[in-house]
């Protein structure tokens, strides 16, 4: 059977097994084993544990649990609420300050957390009830936090950027920098939409009323947010100041955030600290299991020459580079609907990167486009981690409302991709500025 036909069978089998409701990692393992057993012989199944182990045998993966711990430690405190409260008090002159503040807090929090669900939960726990109390429509309250939470994987540090760096041998330090400006662009688009939607829902009157805070009220919240900035600066110093390599940076970052929670938020009880570690372990193990299984799956694709043939086939398509990028985006979008970001990146990046760079696109720019696609997947069914988190923290908002409320933010992300295509410099300017031009295209 020719590899492309075989690839189609693999794709169908994967979708069928995944929609049956099996854990994604196990589904990938089953599909991979079935095709390995059929085409390389059952004896080849002895390679499974080796491929699983070797996929995880990578020091850089350490940063995944570390960046998750950073987020979880801070999310376990009142810090998220303090953050948007401080922003609101200082942004009194901006109409709709509360939703603006919440989105701003999401962006700041994303700068300390590598994962999206953590960002979502940290800000949403207090932010969503507060927004609803002040008269924001449910869809805006839930949608803005769901979307704002996805910034966790675009604004550095980012778990998906680390996995992309590993899968493509690109510099993690550069990848992190590439996400900064596009992250800010997205926050801006989210803010504009939130204000418009609130005004259009006729709830502008109450929700968008400015609240005036006294100078004392403004300064009172400052000490509570300065440590945030201190942590961000400390991590940047460790990362770009010659203290540690990008993959090591996460560990001092995690330790700092736990200390921050203990010292500033008086999280003295062992149970609370253990809770942080337990939640981080759960999320990290879930992600790392998928990474290990995706390693086995990619081995199957590569061994059966499917990866290589798909790449050759896409490369042979006689279409312009922007059509090519459009097709790739569509593919990523659909894959992102069904699969968690790390699985998509591990399987797609090695196939797509050579095609993308041959077509003259920058690998760091592409990482950003890919990540925004993955962010869309996080707030769209059927696998939308952030929707689930919102459902967990605001159970009385119907899933339908959350979903419908998220749709405009998905459109904002699509718009961001279009803007990035028009102005690739948004992704490449900052890494070039800080680290010099990219090394030989990578």
């Amino acid at each position, binding site marked *: 059977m020719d590899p492309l036909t075989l690839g189609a069978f693999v794709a169908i089998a994967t979708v069928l097994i995944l929609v049956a409701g099996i854990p994604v990692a196990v589904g990938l393992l089953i599909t991979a084993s079935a095709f390995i057993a059929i085409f390389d012989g059952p004896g080849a199944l002895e390679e499974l544990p080796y491929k699983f182990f070797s996929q995880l045998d990578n*020091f850089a993966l350490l940063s995944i649990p570390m960046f998750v711990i950073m987020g979880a430690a801070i999310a376990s405190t009142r810090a998220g609420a303090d953050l948007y409260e401080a922003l609101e008090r200082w942004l009194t002159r901006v109409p709709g300050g509360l939703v603006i503040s919440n989105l701003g807090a999401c962006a700041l929090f994303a700068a300390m957390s590598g994962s999206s669900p953590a960002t979502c939960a940290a800000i949403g726990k207090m932010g969503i009830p507060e927004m609803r109390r002040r008269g924001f429509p449910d869809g805006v309250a839930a949608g803005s936090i769901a979307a704002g939470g996805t910034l966790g994987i675009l604004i550095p540090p980012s778990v998906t950027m680390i996995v992309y760096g590993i899968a493509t041998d690109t510099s993690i330090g550069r990848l992190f920098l590439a996400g900064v400006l596009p992250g800010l662009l997205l926050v801006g688009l989210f803010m504009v939409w939130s204000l418009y939607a609130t005004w259009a829902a006729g709830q502008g009157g109450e929700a968008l009323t400015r609240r005036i805070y006294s100078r004392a009220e403004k300064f009172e919240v400052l000490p509570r947010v300065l440590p945030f900035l201190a942590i961000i600066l400390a991590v940047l110093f460790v990362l770009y100041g010659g203290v540690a390599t990008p993959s090591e940076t996460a560990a001092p970052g995690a330790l700092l955030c736990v200390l921050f929670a203990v010292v500033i938020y008086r999280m003295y009880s062992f149970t609370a600290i253990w809770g942080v570690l337990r939640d981080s372990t759960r999320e990290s193990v879930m992600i790392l299991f998928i990474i290990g299984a995706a390693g086995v799956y990619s081995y199957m694709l*590569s061994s059966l020459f499917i990866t290589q043939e798909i790449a050759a086939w896409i490369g042979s398509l006689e279409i312009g580079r922007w059509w090519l990028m459009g097709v790739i985006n569509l593919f990523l979008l659909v894959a992102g609907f069904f699969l968690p970001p790390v699985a998509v990146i591990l399987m797609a990046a*090695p196939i797509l990167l050579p095609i993308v760079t041959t077509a003259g696109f920058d690998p760091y720019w592409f990482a950003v486009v890919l990540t925004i696609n993955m962010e869309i997947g996080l707030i769209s069914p059927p696998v939308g981690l952030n929707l689930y988190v919102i459902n967990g923290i605001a159970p009385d908002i119907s899933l339908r409302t959350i979903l419908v409320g998220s749709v405009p933010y998905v459109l904002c992300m699509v718009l961001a991709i279009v803007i990035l295509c028009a102005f690739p410099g948004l992704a490449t300017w900052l890494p070039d500025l800080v680290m010099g031009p990219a*090394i030989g295209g990578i």
Partner: protein
Amino acid sequence: AELKLSHQWSTSDVRHKIAEIVAEEVAAADVDLEIKIYPSKSLFKPREQYRPLSTGRLDMTVFPLSYAGGERPEYNLTLMPGLVKNHDHAARLNESAFMDEIEALMAEDDVMVLVHGYLAGGFGGKDRCITSPDDVQGMQTRAAGKAFEQMLAAAGASIASMASSEIYTAMQTGVLDAANTSSSSFVSYRLYEQISCYTPAGDVALWFMYQPMLMNKSTFEGLTPEQQAALRAGAAKAEAYYLEEAKKADAESARVFEENGAEIVQMSQEDFDAWRAIAKESSYKAFLESVPDGQRLLDLALAVE
């Protein structure tokens, strides 16, 4: 029939080229044999390849043999400081009794050599030049290979371990002061942008790594005589090319560094002897402790003129 060949390098690397030469020669011989190349660690990770090769899951690989030093500690001799002096010496080593012993060990694992080949490497310092052992005092150094880590540590350097893809950033931010790796890695990772002084492999060089093309022995023996002959012919052509390119790579790396404004220094015979004296007390010693039959193998290697 179809053979799977795996390696870790990009398609522009010389080690991919020798795989291509063999594959093309075999295809041209029209003996119903096809070699499928899986480059850029797309099938197996670099250090992972020896085991599937020996079980026959993988048919062929281009592989730094010392990567399998955990399975066969004797292989550590194929990346030992000062054991090989230059490329012609390396070529003579390939034909020696020492290599016969190494190949006998491979045969125990059902592995055989198709193409012999050594690649050389040098040292690069971010701010300072490295020629003699005194130069590395207190430098955070990333070395390629266990034996070199042991020697550099004995010379007073601090050892930092990281993936070779991280060297550039680590030097840029100042985590790392010096690196020791192959000539081609110095160029492909664009380390000349970070390194102010480069010590290439020249008339004498410390860092030589044996990176042959290997094949599963049973698989080879299962082929028809015509197929075997075609493989052998391709391998002979590839081996000649490999040696030429290996020599060129050192000079080429020095040229690239010079063009980019790095200072180029050469290691003298006295420097070489000083390094080897330190290596004897550190990496050679550790090797002899880990391998019962080590002294005999070492003597065989040192006997090659």
